[in-house]
């Protein structure tokens, strides 16, 4: 769990898909945020954050995603969260961010 939270980054044209793995808590959220913000230097049109392999996330992980969201908004880059697990969905709901983020369970829709 001390390894990088970003497992892979794959590009489909100008769409970057970042696949995250493992629990995202205070121990790993800084690395997640750094990796995701760094990705913006590659000038994607859209960033898809694949959360399907993240069983658990706390508010420090959510904060990293919110930071990414405000940066992408400033840059005019689209952001989609793909397939959050029930627990991750639940913390997004509790913090009322489920309506702020674009969330989908369809990979096709996410990368369109």
């Amino acid at each position, binding site marked *: 769990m001390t390894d990088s939270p970003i497992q892979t980054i794959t590009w489909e044209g100008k769409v970057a898909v970042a696949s995250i793995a493992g629990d995202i*808590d205070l121990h790993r959220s800084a690395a997640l945020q750094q990796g995701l913000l760094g990705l913006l230097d590659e000038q994607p049109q859209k960033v898809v954050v694949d959360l399907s392999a993240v069983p658990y996330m706390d508010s*420090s992980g959510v904060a990293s995603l*919110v930071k990414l969201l*405000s940066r992408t908004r400033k840059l005019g880059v689209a952001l989609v969260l793909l397939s959050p697990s029930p*627990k991750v969905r639940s913390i997004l709901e509790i913090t009322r961010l489920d309506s*702020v983020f674009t969330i989908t369970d369809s990979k096709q829709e996410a990368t369109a």
Partner: protein
Amino acid sequence: MGAETPRTNNDPAGDDGTFMSESAPMNRTLRMEIQSDPAELKSVRVEVESFARALGMTEHAAGKVVLAMDEALTNIIRHAYDGAADRPIEIDLAVRDACLHVTLRDYGRQAPRATIHSRDLSDVRPGGLGVHIMTKCMDSVDYQPAPDGGTTLIMTKSLRDSDNERTNGPCHD
């Protein structure tokens, strides 16, 4: 385990007799002493989830206890200990009167109670979510500055009605 006078607890049901089955947990306590190291959080979550599930909590309810504790520990590490990773935190989970009582004790900087509150969530920005999550997940959340320094945080959640979303359960002290 001291050599105290034996106590015979003939009332596994708590004080009103509505509590679960004949083999319902009576007195169960889980204690952990950890360092204020974010790398410890995962192991605490695993242990707490097991304990809560073994008490008969649903996965959903246990998940809320785990999340609330994780948030509280994160705040202790970040705010009470300013990110130092080698300071002590004592964790105590106990069952009393069909309620799970979570006590977290730190020896760091005390916050004025007024600074620990949830914020307006319609303002979308990173941070400031932990206390909101804790109050959403638990029936009660109470910070008490300890006279000899540091803080005791007590959070409770009913075992009777543990899937309930209400923020004010029957577990207030």
